């Protein structure tokens, strides 16, 4: 029994554990972690995937055996720290103090990690502008997105910044209203934090922009689907009749092949004295394509505005302060330890 205890608390066992942990870490960076099963099957094939999944390699850092390795290291370090404390009581030394602090800090960091894992949560919400969604881990709190804005670098399409204005509703009451969050600048409320994580475009169209050429003259109109406008200085009225995100012709019928914006197209109806004169398709990606029989006008589908959704990350992590406490102690410990080990050598 004493022999076994001795082995589990030995430096040699710690070395073995560290080697195993390093190997596991390296394996985990070469096998994609926590991606979807179809993707795994595409990469590894079904049999290998099932096998990898069984031994926990698809979520290696949260697998039972990896956590066991960390736990054993924790126990080993704890014994090491306790032993050192006993030695320190007999014989005071700065070196030993630094060593204890350093090893203790690693224990604190691991403890913080355990607390994060057990008591924390993390979820993502995609919310459209104007919409409200519940936080599923805390159902009494919901988030309303008032607006979402993207800022670009001057004269380019490169995103400089993006921000969400949101309102927090707890039990039907507004507890925080119209607070702006952006990347690197989250919102905190009662131990939970809301981060700007990303954004995307919904495939519902908000507005379309149409340029109408009438001989030498041209006019630009921005409208919603179903709206109509008059071409300036004429009797003609144009109605935006239909929008297809991915236009194809199938047996001489226009349909949308998917909901992706592969080939956005608009069907325009041209009226004169309330009578339908013509109907034509215009394409966002092919501005020079004209099918209209009416050659007086030329339409260009110049813009389409899609509403954005904002991607928010909701996090509760009570372990984080403990981890950072550990980090602080680690730096202090190393600053004491590293210079003193050198001196200790020279004393010898």
């Amino acid at each position, binding site marked *: 029994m004493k022999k076994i205890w001795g082995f589990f608390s030995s*430096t040699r066992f710690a*070395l073995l554990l*560290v080697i195993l*942990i*390093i190997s596991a*870490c*390296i394996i*985990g*960076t*070469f096998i994609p*972690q926590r991606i979807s099963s179809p993707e795994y099957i595409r990469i590894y094939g079904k049999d290998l995937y099932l096998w990898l999944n069984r031994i926990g390699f698809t979520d290696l*850092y949260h697998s039972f055996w990896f956590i066991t390795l960390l736990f054993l290291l924790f126990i080993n370090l704890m014994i090491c720290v306790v032993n050192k404390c006993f030695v320190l009581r007999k014989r005071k030394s700065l070196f030993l103090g630094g060593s204890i602090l350093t090893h203790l800090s690693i224990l604190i960091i691991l403890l913080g*990690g355990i607390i994060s894992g057990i008591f924390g949560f*993390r979820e993502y919400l995609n919310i459209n502008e104007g919409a409200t969604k519940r936080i599923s881990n805390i159902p009494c709190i919901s988030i309303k997105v008032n607006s979402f804005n993207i800022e670009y*670098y001057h004269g*380019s399409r*490169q*995103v*400089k*910044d*993006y921000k969400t204005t949101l309102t927090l509703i707890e039990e039907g009451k507004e507890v925080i209203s119209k607070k702006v969050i*952006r*990347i*690197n600048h*989250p919102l905190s409320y009662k131990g939970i*934090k809301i*981060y700007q*994580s990303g954004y995307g475009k919904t495939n519902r169209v908000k507005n379309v922009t149409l340029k109408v050429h009438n001989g030498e003259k041209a006019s630009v109109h921005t409208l919603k689907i179903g709206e109509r406008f008059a071409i300036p200085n004429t009797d003609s009225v144009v109605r935006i009749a239909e929008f297809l995100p991915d236009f194809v012709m199938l047996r001489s019928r226009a349909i949308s092949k998917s909901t992706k914006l592969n080939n956005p197209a608009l069907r325009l109806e041209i009226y004169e004295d309330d009578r339908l004169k013509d109907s034509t398709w215009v394409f966002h990606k092919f501005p020079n394509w004209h099918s209209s029989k009416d050659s007086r006008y030329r339409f260009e589908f110049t813009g389409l505005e899609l509403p954005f959704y904002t991607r928010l*990350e909701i*996090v509760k*992590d009570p372990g*984080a302060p403990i*981890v*950072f406490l550990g*980090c602080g102690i*680690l*730096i202090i410990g*190393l*600053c004491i330890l*590293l210079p003193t*080990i*050198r001196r200790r050598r020279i004393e010898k």
Partner: protein
Amino acid sequence: MRSEIYLGLSFFSYLLATLFYVGLQLFKHNLIGIFATSITTLGFLSHTIGLILRTKEASHPPFTNMYESVVFFSWAIILIYLFIEHRFKSKIIGIFVLPIVLLAIGYASVLPGEYKEVRPIVPALQSFWLPIHVSTCFLSYACFAIAFCTSLIYLLKERFGFKRIPDTEFLDQITYRVVSFGFLLLTFGIITGAIWANYAWGRYWGWDPKETWSLVTWLIYVGYLHARFISGWRGKKTAWIAIIGFLISMFTFVGVNFLLSGLHSYV
């Protein structure tokens, strides 16, 4: 761009200085040594000007893409090298350090355009933590590079017993000092990264490949320190750990970006 002219100038200074450092060992004349150090220092000044100009051209600190970070890394190596040369009055290390720097700058200059061009900084990198986190990490890699060189010299001396090389005990001591300083910097770099990640994404650790490899690097040097002070390893064995540690730190720095994907894709 003007910054590239200054970097080119520093490249040629380091090339010339390498010849002088080698010449010093062949002819043992003090004047050659003085020339070697002066030319390296001039190259370093030009390198510094190049980095400052690059910062101005890009209007952000020079660590946001592969090109900028390799140039900064080589700058950090020279900075630490010049300090060590001055402190320990030994010019032998220059023979090994300068070629590494030449290799790094050469690598940076042949990178494809997309890794080189000045780009506006993406939202995730616009933070006060960027310069602190990145500069400490690169300084630690630079320390490990120096320790790699001293360990190589140590092993050569052991193997072939060159008379002109300082005694092995001295090399072992320098290796230990730069490794422990580099280790402290790496610890600091990982911690500032964790603070930043926690602030920006709400997680201090996410097992991203770069994070994981930095942990592996850190653990290798933990191994170095324990081998030295618990198991009493000296010389040859610890020199090998320092060499492996440097190779792993270079994988963390460069390899991860090309072979593995993750959040650190911009650097």
